[in-house]
């Protein structure tokens, strides 16, 4: 059990780094509280697995340090760090039985046979593996194997943190949900710090209390699922989270007023700064309404998903997606829309202006 602090972490797989693109991780700072459930969310290649492997000790960071309970453990190996990690593909020891698989980390640490037996039994019960304990592990299905990998992490009572590296990738869709709730349930039961890496927003948002969104080796936002949805601090978060993602549209800022396609847009903050680089306006499809006057758009396509309608429209400033109830009447041809002021944000070089 430990609080985890990452301080100014940067990592590169190259010997020499010339540009930002050479870094897999840039200036990462994180504080993870003891016993929390966290998710690292981002697309493939954003550096989330690199970050995870640095926390677990499989990788040494190029710069910066990792602290467990304020103690610098950057140079420690995974065994010294006392962590558990579950990988994308179920890692099992093919020739061993399920029991021996679960007992393996304990045997390696020299525990007594009786202690091992009771521990393994307890974990097997928790994961519903009791009936298969004496079977060869290689005969199990993918989700059964992944449960074993998970069990090998849980069986040690002393682990500081349990890390999951996209653990549900190879699991059948209908079992994903089952295993995910199992994880959530386990977290509540054993109350250990868990870090969950995924590129699937549903997995991240349902599992974690705090989600860290990563993009091109940087952390773009950390927050609760609601915060990420309602107030994305970076256009990437707006775009990546939500389905469909946030509308990001070019805009102009003059005298503290936001102008989009010739109209003044009320935003949630007054802007004091002047002289901007590239500015954009961000509005989620959920927060756009049809009205009698406002921004003129042409309706291009309406798709009904059953619960709601997704409307593709075209304005003079770019394409805008709108999400509305499936019962809402959609005007055909041309219409006018307004943005909900509370959820309209302005971004400069992709970062929010506050």
């Amino acid at each position, binding site marked *: 059990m430990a609080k985890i602090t990452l301080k100014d972490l940067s990592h590169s797989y190259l010997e020499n780094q010339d540009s930002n693109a050479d870094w897999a991780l840039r200036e990462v700072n994180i504080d993870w509280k003891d016993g929390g459930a966290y998710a690292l969310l981002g697309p493939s290649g954003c550096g989330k697995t690199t970050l995870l492997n640095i926390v677990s000790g499989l990788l040494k960071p190029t710069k910066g340090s990792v602290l467990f309970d304020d103690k610098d453990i950057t140079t420690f190996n995974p065994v010294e760090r006392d962590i558990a990690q579950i*990988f994308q593909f179920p890692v099992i020891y093919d020739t061993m039985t399920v029991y021996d698989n679960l007992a393996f980390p304990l045997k390696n640490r020299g525990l007594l046979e009786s202690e091992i037996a009771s521990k393994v039994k307890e974990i097997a019960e928790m994961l519903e593996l009791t009936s298969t304990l004496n079977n060869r592990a290689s005969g199990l299905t993918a989700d059964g194997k992944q449960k074993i990998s998970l069990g090998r992490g849980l069986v040690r009572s002393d682990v500081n943190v349990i890390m999951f590296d996209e653990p549900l990738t190879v699991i059948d869709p209908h079992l994903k949900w089952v295993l995910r709730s199992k994880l959530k349930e386990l977290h509540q039961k054993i109350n250990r710090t868990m870090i969950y890496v995924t590129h699937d927003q549903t997995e991240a948002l349902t599992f974690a209390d705090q989600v860290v969104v990563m993009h091109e080796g940087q952390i773009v936002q950390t927050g609760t699922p609601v915060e990420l949805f309602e107030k994305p601090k970076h256009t990437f978060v707006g775009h990546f989270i939500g389905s469909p993602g946030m509308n990001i549209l070019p805009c102009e800022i003059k005298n503290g007023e936001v102008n989009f396609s010739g109209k003044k847009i009320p935003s949630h903050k007054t802007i004091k700064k002047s002289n901007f680089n590239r500015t954009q306006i961000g509005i989620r499809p959920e927060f756009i309404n049809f009205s009698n006057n406002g921004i003129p758009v042409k309706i291009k396509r309406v798709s009904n998903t059953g619960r709601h309608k997704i409307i593709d429209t075209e304005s003079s400033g770019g394409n805008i997606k709108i999400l509305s109830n499936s019962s809402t009447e959609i005007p055909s041809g041309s219409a006018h829309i307004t943005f909900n002021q509370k959820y309209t944000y302005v971004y400069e070089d992709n970062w929010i202006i506050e």
Partner: protein
Amino acid sequence: MNKTINQKAWFFVVPVFILVAFNAAIPLMTVVNYSFQETFGNNVFAWEGTRWFKQILLSERFHAALGRQFAFTFIILLIQIPLGIGIALTMPKKGWGVPVCLILMSMPLLIPWNVVGAMWNIFALPDIGFLGHSLNGMGFDYNFTQQPGDAWFTTILMDVWHWTSLVVLLSYAGLNSIQPAYYQAAEIDGASRWAIFRYIELPKMKKVLTLAILLRFMDSFMIYTEPFVLTGGGPGNTTAFLSIDLVKMALGQFDLGPAAAMSLIYFFIVLLVCWVFYNLMMKNEVQS
């Protein structure tokens, strides 16, 4: 769905049929033909039934050759498999060392077999060969042309030199196909180097090792050229393995009937051992 019936489609099978007939079935049938008959040339045959088979199976000469053959194959497998795995484990996984090692390892495999025999013959000659001369210089009484023990030692050394690479390359391929996550998980589980080998590397190499053992079994069990060039089966008959003995019988003595019967017995032994071994190895494999 209605199936189209067109008997002309059988013509597509004809080329394969002819090919298999000429490269396997017909030659094999010739051997079968000889094994049941006596011939004195001029295409005159006399039916002998199972006489040649009984004669071979009861002959001490065959027993001795078979015994030598099993001993040889057993010894080279015992050396080559662990040695091959050991070398594969120490080979680099990335960097410039990989191509260097792979090329060095492939070298012996590319040398024609009779050249290997000739090379080792000269290399091991007690008076002028580097190996023979050095061994004698160190005080060993080494002469592979005169002493059976030395002849065996040299033949085995030659085979190990020639073929261990095959085991190395197969094992290396097997090792490289192991996902890094396995090593990472083992590291986190606190596994020792031995445990990693025993529980990850060895099981993951099982299939390629089965293949390696089968290939090495078959090749060494049928070995001919190299010992023929190196020792010619001598001194005496001490390194006359099955195929050397077979050729002696067929071409040296022109005993075509017994030689044909011996070929078939030889063939069935290889087939039987491979079949038993393969089934034992694959018994616990899950169908995936």
